[in-house]
């Protein structure tokens, strides 16, 4: 495999696609992709070994020439193969698009709902997990907006 790689190293490029169920958010040639996968942050450069994993709620950073694209994402899936990074998530928004107030009220609402889940409900575990997930997504949006937005 390494021979094969050396032969083709010239002109090799890394591509990245960020895809949500409703549309393709990002699609292009990139220099580097950083994302948080199941076992921690991963940085992908050209000719990365093929990996299939999950994406955790967090931020995906993409370096493209001099630009840096950041997306706050929900959890989802991650695949690198043949110099194509695919990030499949339910939500991906740029820090500029994040409505901090809305995100904060999402967190608040989730917290209210959490306190209402009764232990007697046979489904409470599942409900709780689902609400916690929503809270984490909201918190992540706020965090990404603060960290990367505006300034």
């Amino acid at each position, binding site marked *: 495999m390494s021979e094969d790689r050396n032969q083709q190293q010239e002109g090799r490029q890394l591509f990245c*696609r960020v*895809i*949500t*169920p*409703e*549309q*393709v958010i990002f699609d292009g040639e990139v220099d580097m992709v950083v994302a948080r*996968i*199941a*076992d921690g942050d991963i940085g992908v450069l050209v000719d990365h*070994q*093929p*990996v*299939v*994993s*999950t994406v955790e709620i967090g931020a995906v950073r993409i370096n493209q020439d001099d630009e840096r694209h950041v997306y706050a994402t929900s959890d*989802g*899936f991650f*695949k690198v*193969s*043949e110099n194509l990074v*695919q990030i*499949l998530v*339910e939500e991906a928004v740029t820090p500029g698009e994040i409505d901090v107030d809305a995100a904060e009220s999402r967190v608040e609402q989730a917290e209210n709902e959490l306190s209402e889940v009764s232990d007697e409900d046979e489904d409470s575990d*599942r409900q709780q997990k689902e609400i916690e997930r929503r809270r984490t997504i909201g918190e992540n949006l706020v965090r990404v907006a603060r960290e990367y937005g505006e300034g």
Partner: protein
Amino acid sequence: MASAQDLKRQIQSLDNTSKMTQALQTISGIKLRKAENQLNKARPYADNVDEMMRDIANRAQSGSPLLVGREINRVAICTVTSDRGLAGGFNAQLLKRTMQLRGEQDAETVHVVTGRKAEAFFRFRGIGYEEAFTGFSDSPSYKDAQRVGRYLTRLFEDEEADEVYLIYNRYQSALVQRPVVTRLLPVAPEDNGEDDGGNEEGGQNIPLEFIPGPEVLLQRLVPRYVETLLFRAFLESAAGEHGARMTAMKSASDSANEMSEDLTRQMNRMRQAQITQEILEIVGGAEALAG
């Protein structure tokens, strides 16, 4: 025999009907284009989830019930129809297929329905259903698919159903929508892989690393996979609904126009006969006077 007055009234009413159906046809045409667009935009995600499912399913050695299934005592059937009618045989053909599928099962069947048409159908027939999801057939969002997906996955996980089938109208063109049945759970990714078998062979040569193991990934992917299949089904069904309505409205307008033309012709003939009659009477009267 109808008087000229009656005919006139009928023609007026037909013209009004045709105006309405034409308007609906135009609106459906616009909605159809929107739905087609949505369907195209959703394709990359769906294709990738599909591929990932195949990658993982090939590698997961486990006899996970999500993949392999278990003894079948109860089968859940999820029928995707529209909320509104005026779409020709769009819902009827689907509901017929659902009843056929129900009849084919050896096991007990439970039903889950989406769209008011299916809800009304089951209620009218007195067949019980577990849950009805309505209000989004016109332009579904992923959130809707998520809601239904969660419900169906839970049915399977809680062993309230040992197999889950999805039945919906696949969109082929504005004229053609075909009811299709797919098994949602246990997952059967090989069914979808037939058309790009060549691609799959190429994929197997790459040693993919799975973090964490394929089994854990599978657990997380399956609910998403179900949601994705549902979302695609909803979008196809929405496009189909608008297409079917457009076609139905076009033929309604055409036949209204045709009837109106017939009646107009009939009315003209009648008026002509009356005029001829009057002339004859006048001529007859004049001759009598002259004689």
